[in-house]
């Protein structure tokens, strides 16, 4: 997973409805591709004291220091040993909230990019059975598969 995918915001229209999907535990999730800067393999991450436990630390992206979040921990799922599939999705935080800069999300594996038009998106069920719900904006259908489309704004919000 070393190749990089540079997606600039100016092609927004072209990539509307395009999602990058990734795996956490047994499910596939999606983030809007416009928010994704690149995907990089796991690298050494420096712990920062006094941070919430889902903040993994800082890593060096070619000289730029980027904060990294562990998606599993944020979802409240027990973490698992990193393997060769584990990677960091670098998202453009500025697009979600001005001034955030770039942020890295540790995911189990990156799957593919898919197009999910609006008529293939359903709202999540309204019963809040797990705290995971609050980070999901829509449920997307791709053929027979289900992709949980993330609400990055809520995902990044810190209380």
């Amino acid at each position: 997973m070393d190749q990089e995918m540079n997606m600039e915001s100016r092609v927004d229209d072209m990539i509307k409805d395009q999602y990058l999907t990734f795996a956490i535990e047994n499910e596939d999730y999606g983030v809007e591709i416009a928010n994704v800067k690149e995907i990089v393999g796991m690298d050494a991450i420096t712990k920062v004291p006094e941070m919430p436990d889902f903040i993994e630390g800082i890593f060096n992206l070619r000289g730029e220091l980027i904060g990294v979040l562990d998606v599993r921990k944020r979802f409240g799922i027990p973490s698992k040993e990193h393997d060769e599939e584990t990677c960091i999705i670098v998202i453009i935080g500025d697009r979600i909230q001005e001034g955030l800069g770039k942020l890295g999300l540790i995911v189990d594996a990156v799957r593919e990019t898919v197009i999910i038009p609006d008529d293939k998106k359903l709202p999540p069920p309204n019963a809040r059975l797990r705290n995971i719900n609050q980070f999901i904006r829509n449920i997307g259908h791709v053929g027979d598969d289900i992709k949980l489309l993330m609400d990055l704004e809520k995902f990044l919000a810190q209380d």
Partner: protein
Amino acid sequence: MADFDRESMLDMFIFEMNQLVEQLENTIVQSESEYNIDQINEIFRVMHTIKGSCAMMLYDNIAAVGHAIEDLFYYLREENPKNLDFKTLSDHVLEGADFVKAELGKISNGQTSDGDGSVLIKHIGNFLKAIKAGTPVQTPAPPPVAPTAVATSPPPAPQKSEPPVTKAAPAASKAVKAAPAPAQTEAKSELEEGDMMYQYKAMIYFQDGCEMENIRAYTLVHNLQDIAQDITHTPKDVIDEATIELIRQNGFEIEFTSDLDYARVNNHLSQTVYLRELNLMELGTTMTTVKMPHDLPPVTEAPITEIEPSVEPEEIEAIKSPVTANEDAIKKAAAAAATPAAPTTTNLINVSIKKLDDLLNLMGELVISEATVTQNSELKGLPLDNFYKEARTLQKIIGNLQQTVMSMRLVPLSNTFFKMNRIVRDMCRQLEKDVHLEIIGEDTEVDKKIIEHIGDPIMHIIRNSIDHGVEMPVDREKTGKPRKAKVILEAKQAGGDVLIIIKDDGRGINTEKVLRKARENGLTTKADHEYTEREIQQFIFLPGFSTNDTVTNFSGRGVGMDVVVKNLEICGGTALVDSTPGIGTTFTLKIPLTLAIIEGMSVSVGGAQYTIPIVNIQKSFKATKDKLFTDPNGNEMVSERGEIFNVVRMHEFFHIQGAVTNIEDGTLMMLENGDQVICLLVDFLIGQQQAVVKPMPKYFKRVQGISGCTLLGNGDVSIIVDVPGFFDK
């Protein structure tokens, strides 16, 4: 080349204007009570440039104000009237400067400059009238004749007369350029056309910032060959780029003979693109001056503005190509050269801070990349003597490069300091106080980023000092102080910090009043008598604290000192106040020399690396059991060289897992913050290194005791420890 790239010119324009306004303010504030002729000349020149540039960029409203002030100073310069009300004069000019500043602000924010300066112009006009009425010596106003644009075909005689205001313009620009010939006002009377050969000499000045003056000169000569012979010119070698500066400063001089008459030659030459000024003379006889339209009032009909370059475009391209690579450099040089500044700054160029930041980042990457190459694990055990020798050279070069890049970000505080003159002046006028601002050490250099944050705090403190500290002149005399109060603004370097000291000789801080206010606002935490004078004084830095019962124009809203602390925090600085009743108050701002790089000691705690700024470290040592003890509250202490210090365990402070918990097994770092000292327990020392300071990712909340992060040589990230943070918790 005929296209006129307004966008890129706009940046240069705004930059230049800001410099001019600053220069103007400084000149006025320095010499407020009375202007000497040099200062009048200088203000005149500055206003002239402002007017010209604004007219060129089509900001007629600003140009009009500039024009009015220029008129005023033109009169002062020519007539030197006595008994001038310099205070009112300064007010008018400063109002003008404020207007220009406000409009520039709009322009740089991408808004349209829509300010109406007509009231201001009227005031200035009235003032000028008043001066004129007060002085018997009247100017013979030059006859108002339509400005002479270059006539089309051979007109009999180019009249030499321009509207009264612009008459001074050539002289002024010449003063700047230090051109040899004073403008002659003789009109050329007669011209004949025939087989005769005329000998001409022409001085040509290109517009400021038009760039590639040498190529323009070359083109000019080339075109001249159609109508003239025996062409000689100075500087001789126009293809050499070194001549650009010469042409810019001294103009381009051509001598030639032609069978065409004066008017035709003049017409031919004035078609030159980007021509600012042309002095053509028939040798030994006459000379005339043609001003290009952008220097004339905007209403002027200008037939020449439409003229296209008379040279084929391909030709220009051909000439241009060898220099295109240098165009950026030339542009920068032009930006610098176009800025009328003191002689000491003429060989400076202006670079955007963004580029410097990028450079710094690249530098960091280079250092890391160098380390990963030369210390690559695949090289281990190989006999590579020569490789390592070369690698060391590379290391050395990169080291020097890094130092240079770092030093590029340092700028002197002088601009920030001199701006305070204006504030002091304005406040004194309004509060009717008499204050002299003394500036010391303004050439002290600090990081550009810090400069951005330090201006406001200094301003607030100075305002505070003059508003609260300095007494009215009458009261000062009663207490035996000199009538004129003194505020000293001083900068000096102390280790890795810069100290900015603002000292006044006013009445000092009324600690009783401060304490009472603090109590009223619920800021006190212990009994009144337990507070020391010094502790009480520090209350003034708390948000919303103001002892002024009435809100004045300058202070009393209680936001000032708060801003000081906030701004200082951003750049890692601290503020202290020290006051003696009746004698005065001293504010000391301590700011780091640079945000960009620190000398740090890497330490390991629980397997992670932390960097502690060397400036805070007194020493490190191992403690033995007999030196360690604990008080009943559980505070750990260590005795070292007969002194007792508190022990702070870094792993406890930051809740780090897996660290050394037995003090004897770890290392104690003796850290100082002002006059306090603690001993910090870390696992072990790794080594000393320079660290490029980077801010923590914005997503992370601020943690007390952490000021940022840094990249280490091996690409790892290290957390930079903020030593004062250990003392506050």
